[in-house]
């Protein structure tokens, strides 16, 4: 029995980050996926076959990212000092890398949007052409669409992977301390973006293409989830103990049923059936589940990770023992 700090302001089970951060991690990953697919479609140069992803999708990136950054801002406790992220660069802190990556993403994303704005959003064309400067800028972007796409892919990948590395760098939280987390979050981001295209696009062949892409990515994601579990299961005592939270512990149902079941396996089966021409009327279900699954992954990782710890006073403290003492006295 260990009686510890007996003050929930000092020693609760760690719960510093709530839905705001999970939402940011999800929307950040989604943004990365959106930019990657918009860039790949720009490189394919077949705008007619995939009108939405080639010319319209890119516009969603800064909108989704701004929503994510808003929730992230809500989480800060010392909000007026947010500018401090940009008065320093801490090379060993993934969070500092992330702050600067976010700053890089905006201009890249805007160039990406401008390179297809006339095609994707004809309604905006007169506004763009009203001033010679914007018109010239859009002309330049259209001409360099390929180069912009080639810059957008690594920038977006950096955004997608850093959210996972951010958590895995916390050696003090055994549940996060796995190198698989970066790739897992990146792949999940790509998967949610593919699902978003399959959901929004109005062209049948484009929907099918992205359903097929999503199918492959979900398989990769399932493999990474497996590797993550193996990684922790074969790790240190702390990691094995941390894994317990999804192997019979508090987060077992959320992780395996909500995330793996409803977020990966069921959409995978639906998409497989759709590929064979079945369940066409339920085509919306799989992408919606993938998007919800993407959020669930971030939330369950965030929650289970924060609870995992080296010190673990709460688990050693057993209130029942105290009760027994009192009754004896």
């Amino acid at each position, binding site marked *: 029995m*260990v009686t510890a700090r007996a003050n929930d302001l000092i020693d609760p089970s*760690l719960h510093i980050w709530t839905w705001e951060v999970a939402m940011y991690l999800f929307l950040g990953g989604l943004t990365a996926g959106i930019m990657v697919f918009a860039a790949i479609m720009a490189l394919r140069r077949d705008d007619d076959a995939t009108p939405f992803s080639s010319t319209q999708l890119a516009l969603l990136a800064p909108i989704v990212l701004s929503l994510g950054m808003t929730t992230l801002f809500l*989480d800060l*406790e*010392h909000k007026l*000092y947010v500018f401090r992220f940009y008065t320093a660069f801490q090379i060993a802190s993934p969070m*500092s890398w992330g702050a600067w990556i976010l700053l890089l993403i905006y201009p890249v994303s805007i160039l990406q949007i401008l390179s297809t704005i006339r095609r994707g959003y004809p309604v905006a064309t007169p506004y763009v052409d009203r001033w010679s400067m914007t018109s010239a800028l859009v002309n330049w972007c259209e001409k360099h669409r390929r180069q912009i796409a080639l810059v957008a892919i690594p920038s977006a990948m950096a955004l997608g992977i850093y959210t996972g590395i951010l958590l895995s760098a916390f050696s003090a939280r055994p549940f996060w301390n796995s190198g698989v987390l970066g790739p897992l979050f990146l792949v999940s981001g790509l998967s949610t973006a593919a699902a978003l295209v399959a959901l929004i696009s109005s062209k049948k062949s484009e929907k099918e293409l992205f359903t097929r892409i999503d199918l492959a990515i979900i398989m990769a994601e399932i493999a990474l989830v497996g590797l993550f579990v193996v990684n922790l299961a074969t790790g240190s005592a702390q990691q094995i103990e941390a894994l317990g939270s999804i192997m019979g512990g508090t987060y077992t149902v959320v992780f395996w049923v909500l995330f793996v079941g409803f977020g990966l396996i069921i959409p995978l089966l639906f998409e497989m059936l759709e590929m064979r021409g079945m369940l066409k009327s339920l085509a919306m279900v799989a992408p919606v589940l993938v998007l919800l699954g993407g959020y669930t992954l971030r939330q369950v990782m965030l929650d289970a990770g924060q609870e995992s710890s080296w010190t673990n006073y709460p688990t050693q403290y057993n209130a029942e023992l105290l009760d027994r003492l009192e009754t004896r006295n």
Partner: protein
Amino acid sequence: MTRYAMVIDTRTCIGCGDCVVACKTENKVPEGLNRDWIVEATKGTYPHLTTEFRSERCNHCSNPTCVTLCPTGASHLWKKTNIVLVDADKCTGCKACIAACPYDARLVMHPDGYIDKCTFCHHRVEQGLDPACVSSCPTRCMHFGSLDDPGSQVSQLLKTRQYKVLNPETGNEPNVYYLI
């Protein structure tokens, strides 16, 4: 780097909590919060029980992960020592350092939104004094000093007594030692 250490004798500590009160008074720690605390660990099965009292706080690690992971440089080492401080003017309240501490020693969120923590009373150390907790201890079980000086009380105690640090396998190289 000057390495300051705290050496606490678990055999003479009686868990009275004076160190906690002294810290709150000295540092005007806001109501409801503490920068140090007492752990009472009882092991064994009745009647074969052993109890250990530990006055715990930030370990002022030589390799502090809270400083490494801070995105703004708010968490920093004071004047090339191992004393870990937080600069409130640089702190965004992102809470990365709280998650980064394997000892969960930084769960002190100041009501104004920045992270508050044990400072080893660096303002007293600067004047050649011991931290408030050490100087108030009624059983004199707490000792403070530099490990670089082989003649210091802390160096001598670690040379002559058996000791442990908490979870050395974190790799953080903590500097609060417990004599056992």
